[in-house]
């Protein structure tokens, strides 16, 4: 058993962490959040591509760096620490992994390669209005039409869908669930501003015609979705660990500097113990994040169990950290001016995306050994 990162992984963590501290600070995040643009910028995305961060989890045969999902987790954890807004979760983890797992090599070349280079972004369009976290509930349809397909339906809360170049769209056909690559230009989309400063889109597919070459058929679509959503859930935990870590230490720092009643408020035992509760939850999150990041690439039930256990810890521990961090900051914690609230909002998204607490507890309970 070995929990150490390899030297390459340590270097990756340091590089991404330094990038966050120096080039993608909270100030940058705030500016992009408040501007009218997409909420992130293309030059930074291109740079991430050049540094290999976008290709690292993909195998060499599809043009990736041949790392593992653990590496993607390392990137996400570090990005979470300063709330880097680029669409890593949506494009690399959700869209990218769907293309990788579902696609054939021509599709990898055409859609995955430019994304890994930072020239395009992908979004996975699988959620629909009024449906909770089950990708199998799908009212968007696909029917064969000549040698191609016609897709019709609406997708809601498509993460970073407002700026994506291509969508991987889940649609139901007579032959079961299918995944297609659809050009964003062929859809009508409306930007939705999210609480955490990110954006999503509502995407309308009004009888969009695509060729058979746009269908991802290397694996059954339901299997691809199941695996990709586990990658996605593990990714929310990885980023959530970075967010929780940042909130913990920002709060500890506040307790060490803020004075009331002529003493540092960090001397108050009740607040000390609260900070320790936060620390304990962050450590538990770190532990189970490690398991979920490692097992996310595995086959079998243990993958789903580890990922669901990690999501529960994010929901319970991560939110305890997030709520206590605001509380311990007192009045300034509930102003938009202070940074702690930015993390608070992001934590809510990460807890919710790719299945919330109730969803993952129910899934775990269903597969739990009875003895």
């Amino acid at each position, binding site marked *: 058993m070995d929990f150490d990162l390899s030297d390459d992984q340590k270097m990756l963590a340091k590089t991404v962490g330094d990038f966050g501290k120096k080039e993608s600070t909270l100030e940058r995040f705030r500016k992009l959040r408040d501007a009218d643009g997409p909420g992130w910028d293309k030059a930074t995305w291109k740079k991430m591509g050049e540094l290999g961060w976008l290709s690292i989890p993909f195998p060499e045969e599809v043009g990736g760096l041949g790392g593992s999902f653990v590496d993607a987790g390392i990137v996400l954890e570090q990005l979470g620490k300063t709330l880097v807004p680029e669409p890593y979760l949506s494009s690399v983890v959700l869209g990218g992994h769907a293309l990788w797992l579902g696609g054939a090599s021509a599709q990898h070349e055409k859609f995955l390669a430019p994304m890994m280079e930072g020239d395009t972004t992908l979004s996975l369009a699988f*959620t629909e209005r*009024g*449906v*909770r*976290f*089950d990708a*199998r*509930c799908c009212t968007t349809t696909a029917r064969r039409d000549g040698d191609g397909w016609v897709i019709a339906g609406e997708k*809601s*809360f498509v993460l970073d869908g407002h700026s994506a170049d291509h969508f991987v769209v889940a649609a139901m056909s007579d032959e079961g669930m299918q995944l297609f690559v659809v050009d964003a230009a062929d859809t009508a989309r*409306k930007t*939705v*501003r*999210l*609480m*955490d400063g990110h954006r*999503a889109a*509502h995407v309308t597919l009004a009888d969009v015609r695509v060729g058979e070459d746009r269908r991802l058929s290397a694996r059954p679509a339901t299997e691809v979705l199941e695996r990709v959503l586990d990658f996605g859930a593990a990714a929310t935990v990885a980023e959530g660990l970075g967010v929780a870590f940042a909130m913990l230490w920002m709060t500890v720092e506040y307790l060490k500097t803020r*004075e*009331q*009643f*002529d003493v540092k408020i960090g001397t*108050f035992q*009740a*607040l000390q113990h609260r900070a320790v509760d936060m620390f304990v939850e962050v450590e538990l999150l770190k532990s189970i994040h490690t398991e979920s990041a490692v097992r996310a690439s595995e086959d079998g039930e243990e993958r789903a169990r580890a990922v669901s256990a990690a999501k529960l810890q994010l929901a319970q521990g991560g939110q305890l950290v997030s*709520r206590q961090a*605001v*509380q311990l900051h*007192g*009045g300034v*914690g*509930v*102003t*938009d*001016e202070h940074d702690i*609230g930015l993390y*608070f*909002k992001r934590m*809510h*998204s990460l807890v*919710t*995306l790719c299945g*919330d*607490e*109730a*969803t993952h507890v*129910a899934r775990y309970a269903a597969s739990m050994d009875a003895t």
Partner: protein
Amino acid sequence: MDLSFSPEEEAFRQEVRTWIAENMPPHLKAKAEHAAYFEMPEVMEWHKLLYAKGWVAPHWPKEFGGPGFSATQRFILGEELELAGAPPLSPFGLVMVAPLIMRFGNDAQRARFLPKILSGEEVWCQGYSEPNAGSDLASLRTMAVDAGDHFVVTGQKTWTTYAQYADWIFCLVRTSTEGKKQQGISFLLVEMNTPGVEVKPMQTLGDTPAFCDTFFDNAKVPKENLLGPLNGGWNLAKALLGHERTLVAAVGQTRRNLRLAKRLAAHHRGADGKPLIEDPHFRGKLARLEMRLRAHQMTNYRALAEQQKGHHPGPESSILKLVGSMLVQEADELCMEIMGQSSLAWHDDEAVEPFERWVPPTFCYDRATTIYAGSNEIQKNILAKLILGLPSA
């Protein structure tokens, strides 16, 4: 022992309900329906309607224009207003400074200020906290220097909620640096348009412009605006803090939140296609919240019965603040959980149903409930000392 309201009280409740239904303007009703945030002009519009009806200041004595209500009537009126989702009146004039003016003011001050607070002609805000004086209020540094017939005030107040709409601010200021820090504090009433007074609004986590910083740069304040004795402001502050605690039981607010949670749970469906309100997990969560709320509501009734007998709320009223604020947050969290990914939307009328639109900002803003009006940690310190009699370190 009798837990029921008397027939007269029930009749009064009906009267209030009917009056609200008939008199709340449609645009306010629409907002109430969606638990939306009310802008200050809307709040004042509602204030004036209640004033015309004679119900704007149910706790004021008759001599100053109050309706002469019993504690139970006051409670019923408040509960019905909360349940109807009516705009919450600004408390700074009606609930906070007015009782102090009645108790500590001179006749001229009473005549000058009270009628306009009642009518809503003048809007007030509160100048207590400072950047380095929050929980530790007595550390405040805003100075008021004696300059003959006026004070010259310099300093910064923070959390001066709705200062941008206010005509007047009541402030705790330092008039002496001698003795214990509590001893040199005075209570001053300052007109907002005084030269040297500047307001800088800031956004809350819920993106509402409720909070402000208010800056004083050599602002001249006539001495007649001193309320109570010079250097005696701390006693006024303490009298007010007790008042504030009983404001925050928030029973009506939580009941309304719970109603919203049920509505959301009827709207959103689980993987099996059934509304979440039929899902045992979510139904159980809703039930637990309602059951806990029931215990809180009974605690509130107990406090009310004590007030009915003329007893002043003691430190045990801190419980109402502690439990009320917790339940408000729990209800918000449950609403968010029920909404699922829709809870990620931010001020977006099209992405979600209109009645869902205000849930996320409210969830964010309500993190303040465990902080404001004396943080829950401060309330616990008070209870530990004054009720449990635990020793100080």
